[in-house]
């Protein structure tokens, strides 16, 4: 916790004085997932923006470290104390992996840089299914035998956590079917092999536009802001929130960056400042809209507060769902 408060205080100072530190060699952006996924795309978009706008004299390199579901990448950052040439991208796995596996690492070992966006989740059904609203699906789930099949990417990860959150509140039994990725879940829904699934907008938008699947409701507290039509008559903004259909549970997932612990405040300030410039570019806004991400830039204490609250929420939900590591 000490590094975090120190860093927060330092940030205040450094915004007053112009950041004096600059990288002296190429910077690694470590992605704790394999190439091609959402985290990887974000890192490569940031890399492309920095390159295109000449935001740094040194080059930025994306390194994928998918080993141990990101655990190895996190351990690597933990061990790289004082190394100002390393960044790591994160999503909610930054709390979920340690909680689920007892890996001795926490985001508090790192220096927070910034949250650059939040990812949305929606509940999706096949376009030809009879369910028009969440209560329709809940009613069908109450009587279905064998229980309705709800798909998602991965087991005991955010998709299953959301499924647990939704259907434990609705108090209906379901069978959660874990697939390797959100994309696979989307295809399985398009082929009518499952009744519904949870997915990020970007993982399902292709099938939605093709008339194969459709969003039932979005799990964010507010509707998405994007008003460009995605299908003939619907935009992201037209998708109701699950809250509007009576659900209390909501979920968003952070997308942010960290660096190793014990770096100097000037070094931290440099990257905060760099990310501020990145999120101002038209390419970044395009990236956000394309993936229907929630624009939400936070740094300094605001980022730390968010992380603290979000981790507590995950711990509580994972405990209820029985996903915490027991050994």
């Amino acid at each position: 916790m000490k590094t975090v408060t120190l860093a927060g205080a330092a940030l205040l100072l450094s915004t007053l004085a112009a950041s004096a530190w600059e990288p002296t060699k190429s910077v690694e952006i470590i992605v704790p997932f394999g190439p091609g996924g959402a985290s990887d795309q974000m890192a490569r978009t940031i890399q492309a923006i920095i390159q295109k706008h000449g935001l740094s004299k040194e080059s930025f390199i994306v390194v994928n470290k998918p080993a141990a579901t990101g655990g190895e990448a996190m351990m690597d950052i933990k061990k790289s104390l004082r190394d100002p040439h390393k960044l790591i991208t994160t999503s909610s796995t930054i709390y979920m992996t340690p909680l689920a596996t007892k890996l001795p690492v926490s985001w508090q070992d790192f220096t927070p840089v910034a949250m650059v966006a939040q990812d949305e989740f929606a509940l999706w059904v096949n376009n030809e299914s009879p369910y028009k609203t969440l209560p329709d699906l809940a009613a069908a789930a109450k009587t279905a035998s064998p229980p309705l099949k709800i798909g998602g990417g991965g087991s005991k990860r955010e998709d299953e956590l959301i499924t647990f959150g939704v259907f434990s509140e609705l108090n209906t039994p379901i069978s959660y079917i874990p697939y390797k990725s959100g994309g696979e879940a989307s295809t399985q829904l398009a082929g009518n092999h499952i009744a519904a699934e949870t997915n990020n907008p970007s993982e399902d938008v292709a099938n939605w536009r093709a008339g194969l699947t459709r969003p039932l409701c979005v799990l964010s507290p507010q509707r998405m802001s994007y008003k460009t039509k995605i299908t003939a008559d619907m935009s992201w903004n037209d998708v109701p929130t699950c809250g509007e259909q009576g659900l209390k549970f909501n979920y968003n997932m952070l997308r942010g960056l960290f660096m190793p612990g014990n770096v100097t405040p000037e070094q931290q300030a440099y990257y905060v400042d760099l990310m501020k410039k990145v999120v101002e570019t038209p390419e970044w806004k395009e990236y956000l809209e394309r993936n229907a991400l929630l624009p939400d830039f936070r740094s300094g204490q605001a980022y730390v507060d968010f992380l603290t609250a979000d981790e507590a929420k995950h711990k509580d939900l994972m405990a209820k769902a029985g996903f915490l590591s027991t050994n």
Partner: protein
Amino acid sequence: MENISLLLEGFQVALTWHNIAFMFLGVLLGIVVGVLPGLGGPNGVAILLPLTFSMEPTSAIILLTSIYWGALFGGAITAVLFNIPGEPWSVATTFDGYPMAQQGRAGEALTAAFTASFVGAIAGVVLITFLAPLVAKFALRFGPAEFFAVFFLTFCSFIGMGKENKAKIVVSLSLGFLLAGVGIDTISGDMRMTFGVGELMNGFDFLVVVIGMFGVSEILLTLEEGLEFKGKKARIDPIVVLRTWMQMPLYFMTFVRSCLAGIWLGISPGGAVAASFMGYGLAKRFSRRGKKFGSGEIEGVIAPETAAHAAGTSALLPMLALGIPGSATAAVLLGGLMIWGLQPGPLLFVEQKDFVWGLIASMYLGNMVGLFVVLATVPLFASIMRIPFALIAPVILMVCAIGAFTVANSSFDIWLMLIFGAVGYAFKKLDYPLAPMVLALVLGDRAEDAFRQALIGSAGDLSVFMDNGLVATLMIISFALLLWSPISELIGRLLRRPAVAAE
């Protein structure tokens, strides 16, 4: 034929001087990347992705797919020369390719492998050209039960058609399943068999195991036989390509069988690895020279390479049409598409016609360029065999270690590679086949996931595997193949018995 006119327009997009230059560049880079095991297609494409951001999407994807083709071709080079499969689907290529190289016929083996890859790839592209929309719809019919049936079919045909001792195949297969189970389980999200070792959480990477079991164990075996300071007597023969081509028409049926098997496994989601093994198995079963497979038969190189590339290419179709990557490299390409603002999915064919048909045209052209480039390098690669083993062995070992490390940037994998080198050595000494273990390692956890997903959905009812025509047919064929040899033996005996009685 609307597709043909669209394809011709595609050729116009792809056939500009700078695009052709990109193809050559991409193929060359791809070969380099493919020759280094572990660096492999996905990493190669990922490393070069940023270079393409400032290019227009069509040129960029042409460059990247050319790297992909180059890497596919390159994977066969190390498989033939050093018994190290550069890509998962090159494993079956080593069975006959490596013995050929040892007999001084490396040039012939490489030519056969490259030509076969080309034929397979073109068969796949032709399919994409004409059947794209139909195939995309067919792929949607695959739920967990159907997925499992396809994998089951592959395993059964392996046991049923294998000529080795059946018990040893099953033992090897089972060990592969065991290894595939290590790491995080997709279905429960729990750790299995990691014994608290963090490095094991992601399981055994296929490439690390294969580099050890094939590459390192081969070096151990050669060392045991005594260090020969003489190089293999490989003749450098500039017309080896033409001579090998003269033989090709003899293997027409092998090409046809492998193309069909490859296309089938490419569009049903069995993938290139299963296809390469099935292509090899089919050729072994139906070829007149099947008994000699494994001792350096050119047909044994042609069959798996054709099938793997037919599958690998037709697997790009689900990627474009459904947005589902068929392989790690395809996943990176997919990420690239999205960064350029293209949304892979059913509408890509409707909304981005220029791009899609430019890409398809570049598949034809990229493979032609690839074939040209690799064939030109055959004498060069074949001459590597002339370097004395004592000199080249440390280099191979180093390349292996680098390859194992690059898979996940983890030094633990180098130790794993060495351990699997010892395991592979023991397998070969005890005369256990390595291939079934490799197959089970690659497909084992996917088969298991599909099996359990199907059963979760049906609440444990096994009848889900007989639920519809598609899955039932696949299961019945599987059992027929599994029991093929006992049944055919039984029929043989029944037919013979009346004859005996009559005497």
